[in-house]
């Protein structure tokens, strides 16, 4: 495997891991809120985070540029302040992958949280536990398998992200070229051996993740 391909592989694993971590930090509380707290704008929040599931990835990528690009709603003030822009960096690849993966985690985790018997939470309340402690000690442990499954899906989605990444992060070898982009480039330039090696690597990683998730799930039941 060429150094470029190895670098793409390493970048992909890094991007997918960080994106999954971000997802865990944002997505699990979000899933809990959506499942258990009937707040105003719940429908809107649900809609916005679910959009990347149905929109073409390039459209999601376009929105991300509108939001984070050098002239974007958030990107412009950031650039004015620091002279730095997230676009065309590996952070951009992380953001794109995280946004694309988030609905998979939130939906799966939310369903798992909703399926926890509410009487268990009520029992915890009557036994003196605050809502926060009840979530940590009762609801989330019992929804653990569903949350893990959601994280696996999110990781897989992040690993395979192509369209939104291309829009926001570009395809800069060594910097933003993740494995899917590298495969596309390799095929376009006729380097079929490289393409095959990357395809095999990605397939192997995906299989390993599914296997690991199965083991984790089995350990908890």
């Amino acid at each position, binding site marked *: 495997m060429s150094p470029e391909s190895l670098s793409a592989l390493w970048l992909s694993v890094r991007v997918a891991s960080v994106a999954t971590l971000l997802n865990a930090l944002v997505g699990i509380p979000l899933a809990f809120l959506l499942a258990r707290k009937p707040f105003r704008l719940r429908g809107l929040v649900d809609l916005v985070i679910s959009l990347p599931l149905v929109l073409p990835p390039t459209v999601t990528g376009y929105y991300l540029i509108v939001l984070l690009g050098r002239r974007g709603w958030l990107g412009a003030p950031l650039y004015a302040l620091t002279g730095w822009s997230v676009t065309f960096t590996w952070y951009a690849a992380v953001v794109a992958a995280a946004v694309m993966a988030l609905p998979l985690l939130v939906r799966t985790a939310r369903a798992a949280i909703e399926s926890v*018997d509410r*009487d*268990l939470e*009520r*029992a*915890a*309340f*009557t*036994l*003196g*536990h*605050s809502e926060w*402690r009840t979530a940590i000690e*009762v609801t989330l*442990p*019992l929804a653990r398998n569903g949350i893990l499954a959601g994280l696996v899906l999110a990781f897989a989605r992040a690993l395979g992200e192509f369209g939104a990444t291309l829009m926001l992060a570009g395809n800069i070898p060594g910097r933003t070229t993740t494995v899917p982009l590298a495969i596309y480039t390799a095929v376009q330039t006729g380097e079929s051996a490289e393409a095959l090696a990357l395809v095999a690597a990605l397939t192997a990683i995906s299989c390993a993740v599914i296997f690991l998730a199965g083991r984790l799930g089995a350990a908890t039941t």
Partner: protein
Amino acid sequence: MSDRLDVAIRAIRGVFTLDVAWTAGDGVSVLFGPSGSGKTLTLQCLAGLMRPEAGRIAVDGRVLFDAARGIHVPPQLRRVGYVFQGYALFPHLSVRANVAFGLRDHARADRDRRTSEAIERLGLRGLEDRHPRELSGGQRQRVALARALAIEPALVLLDEPLSALDLPLRRALRDELQTILADWRVPTVLVTHDFAEAYQLGDRVLVYEEGRVRQSALRGDLLRRPASESVARILGFRNVLRGVIREVTADHVRLEWRGQILEARNSGDTFLGVSAGAPVSFFVRPEDPRLLRKDGPPPNPAHHANILKGRVVREADLGVTRSLLLRLDESGPPAQGDYDLEIEVPQFVYEVLNLDEDQHWEFSIHRGSIHFLPS
């Protein structure tokens, strides 16, 4: 007996309105009534899991809820032990962790002591490391009780504690529950729709229907004096009937029912309308009417009051007894669907009288067997 529990609440959930006011002293108060009558909602209000729209709840003088003063003590601070329907044991925790769950804020030594005491008193020794799925139904009930009692609650709530169990086990666990409740002596509110359960476990029974308390009575009074026809029906009384008063004297009441004049003892029911022509509800326990032997002497009016004739239209073998549904020979629509009166006879009587061959019978209803119901 002082009132330790004082409840007066109105709670609205969609189209359902709960509007109840009752008090209870020591011991077990049973909320009894059909499903959907607001029993569980009452428990949730007592536990603080639901906030009523109006009213007040106090336990031993401690106000847990008072709409007028804006008081709503959260469930975490109420010290109300709640045994949920289906027990709601934490499936991911051991028996010990379940029992200790409400004691997290206690010092470790105190927590361990209280946990062990609850485990000991509820006979869970040896099961501490098991998980709920590895327990029998009876053991689960005891874990749920231990968990609720370990916090030394001011009040214990039990929501259909036996409904998740098979019938033979239910009977045994009812006895066990009674022993446990007597042992811990915590004021208890128990919800059930099983009258046998309500009667055995309750010191006081509150009859719920459609979000209202139809009657609150010590359990003995409940069977003797149901507060109304609807309470009698909720309690599962059979032969709840309607007649018209014809005459009331100091010791007799004459009423007309199905074209017959029945004579009943006047046991001083102040609610009886004295005016002739007033409608009246009454009930006759199925085991009270006496079938008259055809081979015996003719009925003696001194002993046999209210002699009626009818035929058996249906019967049911109840094991120890037989239930006979009789239709009077009178014309007109029967009082209870296709029959007028249910009579329950012991199995041996059924055999001695050859009831399977002969459907047509005379029977008498003793004057003291006609019980009037307040309207």
